[in-house]
């Protein structure tokens, strides 16, 4: 099993992802510079958080034209796993690997705090070790996490169980108060129809060590590695 962490100019959570995958998930992992065009040999790639291309034009907009993204699209089409976190989620939406878009937070603040998210679909490759309704404590750190899409797209997301995580309060209620950015229906993370591409605004790679306030992110990586182990 091998993981790749894609590195764009301006990525800044790439080392966190690498650290968690190698130290806590215990799997081989390589950085993949954005000019690479070959992802053979990898089972899953992480598109990490940060400010690819300085967030110029729109967050994630320019990264979609990096050479590696053609390979990422082919990789996803083959059913391999593509996991975008924060800026990675923004890039996946801009690259049309996930539907919708992430806009400026409705409160205009950069939101940086631990937050509760509820597991909405436990049947994805990324949540198989979790239960529906389980609440995870995972930090967010973003200014553009306000998920928007049109009504038809939203109906499709709901019908196909593509909403994987929602922001909630401590008791699991998805209230407006628990929504940090104005995201439609408290959406914190979605997958594509096939389930192999996941994007989420919260940072599970920052929630894998008790010292950092939460271990809950490990279950997401554990789900993914178990899924890959079963499929290989």
């Amino acid at each position, binding site marked *: 099993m091998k993981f790749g962490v894609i590195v764009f100019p301006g990525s800044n959570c790439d080392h966190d992802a690498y650290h968690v995958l190698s130290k806590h998930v215990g799997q081989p992992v390589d950085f993949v510079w954005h000019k690479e065009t070959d992802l053979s040999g990898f089972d899953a790639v992480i598109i990490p958080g940060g400010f690819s291309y300085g967030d110029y034009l729109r967050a994630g907009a320019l990264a979609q034209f990096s050479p590696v993204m053609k390979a990422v699209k082919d990789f996803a089409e083959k059913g391999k796993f593509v996991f975008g976190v924060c800026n990675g989620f923004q890039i996946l939406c801009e690259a049309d690997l996930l539907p919708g*878009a992430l806009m*400026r937070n*409705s409160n*205009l603040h950069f939101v940086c705090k631990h937050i509760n998210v509820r597991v909405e679909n436990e049947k994805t490759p990324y949540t198989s070790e979790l239960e529906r309704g389980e609440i995870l404590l995972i930090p967010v750190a973003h200014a553009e996490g306000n998920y*928007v899409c049109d009504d038809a797209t939203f109906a499709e997301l709901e019908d196909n169980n593509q909403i994987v995580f929602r922001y909630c309060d401590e008791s699991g209620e998805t209230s407006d108060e628990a929504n940090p950015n*104005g995201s439609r229906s408290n959406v914190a993370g979605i997958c594509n129809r096939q389930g192999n591409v996941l994007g989420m605004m919260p940072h599970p790679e920052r929630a894998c060590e008790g010292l950092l306030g939460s271990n809950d992110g490990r279950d997401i990586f554990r789900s993914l590695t178990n899924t890959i182990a079963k499929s290989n």
Partner: protein
Amino acid sequence: MKAKVYVTLKPSVLDPQGKAIHHSVELLGFENVADVRQGKYFEIALNTTLSEADAKVAAEKIAKDILANPVIEDYKVEIVN
């Protein structure tokens, strides 16, 4: 030849930045401003060898593929000599 590209949020999309600007405009004392929407403006210099029609096609494609995100934004292209 120059292409002017205007990118604006779709009317259905909320614009929190426009709202904040509107609020500041009101604080400045302008009471008759109903709404403010923020957008982007691009000037693209094109080779003079292009015909106006070809320039329009090229600029439309640039606007559609890069400058605007069709999920949330509309665009308008003008060609000026």
